[in-house]
C-alpha cells in the first residue's frame, strides 16, 4: 500500500547468556559467599585466582585449597587520578597481591590513602563489596592491615 512504511524496533543487545564453566562457576560462587579458594598445581604451587589447567603439565586442576582473606603486596603503583569503573573513585594503589598460602600474585586495588602507606611487603586484607553478583569485583579492594593513615 503506497504511503505505509514498515517500522520495526531495533534494540542493540546481546540476547544470550553464557556459562563461565566449572572452575569459574565455583570460584565466583565462593567469592559471592565471601570465601577465597585457589587450586593446587602439580608442582605444589597454589594459584589464586584459581588456575583451571596446570601451567606445567596442562592437566585440569581439581584440588581446591581454602585460603584466608589476607595477603602481601609484591609490587604496587599509585593511581593518582582514577578512571571511571576502576575499583575506587579516589586515589589508590594498584598492587600485585600474594594471598597467604598461595604462590602466584593477583592484581587488585589497595585503598592505602597515600603512597606513603604502601610498600612491597605491606600486609593487606580483603574488603568485600556490599553487592556480590559473583566476579572479581566481589572483592571491592584491599585494606592495609593495621589501617592506612
Amino acid at each position: 500500500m503506497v504511503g505505509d512504511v514498515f517500522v520495526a524496533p531495533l534494540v542493540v543487545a546481546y540476547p544470550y547468556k553464557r556459562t563461565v564453566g566449572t572452575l569459574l562457576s565455583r570460584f565466583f560462587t565462593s567469592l559471592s559467599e565471601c570465601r577465597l579458594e585457589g587450586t593446587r598445581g602439580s608442582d605444589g604451587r597454589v594459584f589464586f585466582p584459581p588456575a583451571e589447567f596446570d601451567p606445567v603439565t596442562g592437566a585440569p586442576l581439581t584440588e581446591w585449597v581454602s585460603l584466608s582473606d589476607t595477603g602481601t603486596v609484591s609490587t604496587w603503583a599509585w593511581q593518582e587520578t582514577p578512571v571511571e569503573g576502576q575499583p575506587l573513585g579516589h586515589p589508590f594503589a594498584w598492587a600485585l597481591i600474594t594471598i597467604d598460602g598461595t604462590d602466584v600474585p593477583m592484581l587488585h586495588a589497595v585503598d592505602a590513602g597515600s603512597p606513603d602507606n604502601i610498600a612491597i611487603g605491606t600486609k593487606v586484607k580483603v574488603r568485600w563489596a556490599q553487592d556480590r553478583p559473583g566476579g572479581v569485583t566481589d572483592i571491592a579492594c584491599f585494606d592495609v592491615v593495621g589501617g592506612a593513615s
Partner: protein
Amino acid sequence: MALRDIAIVGTAQRPSEVNSTFTSVEILLPVIQQLLDKVKIERSDIGFWCHGSCDYMSGQPFSFVSAVDAIGAWPPIIESHVEADGAFALYEAWVKIQTGEVDVALVFSNGKTTSGPIDQILSLQTDPYMVAPLKPGFDALAALQARACLEAGVVTERQMAEVAARSRRDARNNAVAYTKGNESADDLLAMPYTLNPLRAHDCATPVDGCNAIVLAAGDVARRLAERPAWIRGIDHRIDTQRLGARSMIESSSAAIAAQKAGVARDRIDVAELHAPYTHQELLLRNAMGLSESTHINPSGGALVANPAMAAGLARFAEAAESIFAGSADRVLAHCTSGPMLQQNLVCVMEGE
C-alpha cells in the same frame, strides 16, 4: 627446508599527528602510493597484501575491511589482516613468501590512537574475568612492572630518565616523531609522578600514524633495491597471560625470541626497540644482550611516537632505512604487544 632469502626493499611512513580527522583510507592511500613510487612497482606486482590494525580503536567490528579501499581490490588481490601491530603482518607476509607462492608482498599498518582512551582500550586485551573488570590501564600495569624493577635494582629512575632524554633528543631529527625535546635527565627527574613510579616522560606518546613496507625475495629484491635489508632471523615468543606468574624484572619471551633470531651471532649496529615505557627499553636491552656499542632507537623510538598497531612496523621501517642508507650493516627490529611486554617479535636484518 631451505629458507628463501627475503628482504625489506622499501618503506614509507606518515608523519605523526594527534586528533586526526582523516579516515584510515585517507591516511593510508598516499603512504601506499608513495611507497609504490619509491620502489618503482605497480599494484599488479604485489603478490600478497597484509594489514595490521585494531578494530577496538574505531569501536566497530570488521572496520579493517574498509582499508582495502586504500589498496584496491580489483582486479582480485590476495590479502590478509591481523588484529595486531603491522610487525605481525610483516611476519605473516614473510611466511607467505617462504611458501614460494609469491615473491613480493606489501605490508601496511595504521592506528588512529588519539580518537579514544587508548590506555583503557588496550587493557581490554587482559583476562576478561580476573583482570579486565578492574579496568587497569596499560600505564598502571607497566608501572607495577617498573616498581618491581626499581626495587630489584634492575633499573634506576635516572636510567629511565636518560632513556627518555635520549629519545626526545633523537626525535628532533625524525620527521615522523612527535614528542621532541632537549631536556637533561635531571630536568626530567624534577617532573612529578603521573602514575608513581612513572612520570609522563616514561610513557609513550599516543599518536595517529600509518606506514607501509615492501618485502621481496631473492633476485627480485636485488632488482628493487640498491641495498636490500635481508631478514636473517625472525622469531615471536609469548609470556603467560597470567600477570602474576610472569617475572616482573626480566623478559623471558624477548630473550628467547632474540636467541632464536640469532641476535648474538654478531654485533648489532642499530636496534629499533618497541618499548612504550622507559624501563621496558632497559629490560629489552638486558633480555637481548645488546651491548653499549649498539645504537638504540636512533629514530627516537616508540616513546616519542606510538601509533597503536603501527609502532612496531615503524621499527622495521627505521631499521631497514639504516641499511638502505649504508649507516648500518646489521640491525635489529622489535615489536611488543600486550601488557608488560607479554609478546615479543625480534628480527635481525643485514645489508650485503
